[in-house]
């Protein structure tokens, strides 16, 4: 196996050093090191490979939007070395058979760890539990369960799910959306929805479910994960729950750190997403929550859609945004350049913490000799204008198209193998 030396790269203590990657692990760290191939890391920062807890790979069922392979490539380009593939495929990932298929496709692609997420309920229908134990015991070793896209809104069913997954150290990742309060909802309910005549998705529809779920988790002593939290009120509830010792973790997406709902005034469905883009006050609150650790992780909610599902009128368009390739740049711009977080915090929110929540033992490890060589080398001095036509994902629905984002992934190492080199996909 070819060995690589990354020269003069900054690691989290801020010092510039060389890192040698060999046989799948970090073999040496120090000055003046050599290897078969050299990667120039000067001016760059090395982070543990990013772990996404929330990715839609669309396979099986919507291979026109994304496949496990194309999504793995997009993930590698974004600096990820592990992704969690959401269960809302067709067929739904609610049996051991489907999760093993996705897991196997991930192995074949070989660019990131593809960790299937299992559905909480059969067919995501919210009425009967899926075979949670069978999925946990399968080759895919599922630990994260979610009906993402739909909310497990039946309180009794949610309680049972939270209890049941304790048997195999699983976690329920809730898509918090009270369904009756969001019938036909198109965007954040606020001044702008009123003006645009688009049905509103009120913050309370998210907050009410989160409040209920943290109380349920407390009652049954389970751990709970809250998907793509988007409102200031949600941050408050999580903060309160944690102060009470409730075992809850939460994620925020890059787009909820970046955009406010006024972009919807264009009626361009590229900005249509669920949960919707919120107000400036919400963006400030989720940034502060991520910085102080109330929100544990950044997860992309990468949701690829074919162009016909976005090149249409707003209400006809699909919800969702691509996110894998831009995530690190967006976090850099919104959290690091603003002074809210340092690189150590970025490593925690995007690698260490998501690996812990997902129970992915080989990911999110410190950059030290002997660790698995899952690494991303990021050049913060670069910047790039996002061109939707050049996405690696099979879909083009990036909301950052035409915008310039700071930084660039120069290299990604997955189990010692470069999946990205010189900013280009190496696969």
């Amino acid at each position, binding site marked *: 196996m070819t060995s690589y030396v990354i020269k003069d790269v900054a690691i989290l203590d801020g010092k510039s050093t060389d890192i040698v990657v060999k046989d799948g692990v970090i073999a040496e760290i120090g000055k003046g090191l050599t290897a078969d191939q050299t990667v120039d890391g000067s001016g760059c920062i090395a982070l543990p490979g990013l772990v996404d807890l929330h990715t839609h790979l669309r396979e099986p069922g919507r291979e026109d939007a994304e496949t496990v392979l194309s999504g793995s490539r997009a993930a590698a380009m974004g600096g990820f070395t592990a992704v969690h593939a959401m269960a809302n495929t067709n067929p739904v990932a609610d049996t051991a058979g489907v999760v093993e298929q996705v897991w196997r496709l991930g192995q074949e692609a070989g660019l990131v760890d593809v960790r299937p997420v299992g559905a909480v309920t059969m067919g995501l229908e919210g009425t009967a539990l899926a075979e949670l134990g069978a999925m946990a015991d399968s080759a895919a070793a599922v630990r994260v369960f979610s009906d993402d896209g739909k909310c497990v809104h039946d309180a009794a069913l949610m309680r049972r799910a939270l209890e049941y997954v304790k048997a195999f150290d699983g976690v329920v990742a809730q898509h918090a959306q009270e369904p009756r309060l969001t019938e036909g909802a198109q965007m954040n309910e*606020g001044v702008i929805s009123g003006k645009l005549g688009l049905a509103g998705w009120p913050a309370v529809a998210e907050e009410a479910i989160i409040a209920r779920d943290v109380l349920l988790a407390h009652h049954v002593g389970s751990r709970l994960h809250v998907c793509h939290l988007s409102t200031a009120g949600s941050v408050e509830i999580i903060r309160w729950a944690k102060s009470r010792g409730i075992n809850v973790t939460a994620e925020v997406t890059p787009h909820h750190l970046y955009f406010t709902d006024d972009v919807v005034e264009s009626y361009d469905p590229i900005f249509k997403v669920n949960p919707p883009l919120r107000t400036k006050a919400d963006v400030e609150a989720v940034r502060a929550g991520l910085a102080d650790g109330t929100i544990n992780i950044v997860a992309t909610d990468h949701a690829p859609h074919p162009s016909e599902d976005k090149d*249409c009128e707003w209400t006809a368009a699909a919800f969702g945004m691509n996110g894998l390739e831009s995530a690190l740049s967006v976090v850099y711009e919104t959290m690091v350049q603003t002074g809210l977080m340092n690189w150590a915090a970025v490593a925690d929110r995007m690698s260490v913490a998501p690996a812990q929540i997902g129970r992915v033992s080989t990911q999110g490890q410190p950059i030290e000799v002997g660790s698995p060589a899952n690494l991303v080398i990021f050049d913060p001095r670069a910047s790039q204008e996002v061109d939707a036509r050049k996405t690696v994902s099979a879909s083009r629905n990036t909301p950052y198209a035409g915008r310039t984002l700071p930084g660039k992934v120069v290299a990604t190492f997955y189990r010692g193998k470069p999946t990205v080199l010189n900013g280009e996909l190496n696969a």
Partner: protein
Amino acid sequence: MKHLLSAADLSYEDAILVLDTAKQLAAATEQGVGKLPPLRGRTVVNLFYEDSTRTRISFEAAAKRLSADVINFSAKGSSVSKGESLKDTALTLEAMGADAVVIRHNSSGAPHRLANAGWISGGVVNAGDGTHEHPTQALLDAFTLRNHLRNGEGDLKGVNVTIVGDVLHSRVARSNVLLLNTLGAKVRLVAPPTLLPYGVEDWDCEVSYDLDASLEGSDAVMMLRVQRERMNAAYFPNAHEYSNRYGLNVTRMNRLSESAVVMHPGPMNRGMEISADVADSQRSVIVEQVANGVSVRMAVLYLILGGSESM
């Protein structure tokens, strides 16, 4: 003017120009001129995704009186989940050489997409989109108000307009609040709290839940259509209670000042938001609104298509 998508697109000068142009066109109609020549050789497409015979006929009459060729494209039902997408329809219209597309769509913002997505090069006129806007309705309302209250001249400075009913789902109310403000009028919205949009307190208008307290001082009362289905979604208990609290009946009408007028964008639910006596009373300008609709739409089409294409 390249498009008319929202009443907010109209500056004060634009709005006055549309009203003044409509006034001259209305005069021509009154003088018996059946057909005017300025849109000869222009093609106007009426692209209607919702049944709205009255609005379509109004636009059709307006375009034809200006000598445009008119193509009616009725996409009954919805293109949303089946059949041709709005984009493909737009590309077809572009290929057919449409100079302007008048669009009525059940999706808020569809006219904006049509105008800005790069699918077509012609002008776009919003003939009502979802629960968003209906700018030509606001223009015809302003035109009617100006005729009655300002002798057909100038703006509406100091005019008090009370808009009553289902503001939440009303594109007419949204466009009227914007345009009437532009023209200097004062707008008050009256509705049960359930039928007011979130954030309405930030709009440029007064808001009240009490119709009786809002009648005095109103120069015009505009009643909005309330769909009976709304009571099934718990916006109000039943039609009877709605009518009692928010309907305009003769007793309430008689409390209006002598010169005040009663308006309704139609189609009316007689007995629900407006009693038959009120609808047919001397104060009612509802039939006039319909006639003015043609003149105002002629003005909009003339201003969009009557000059050079490059703006």
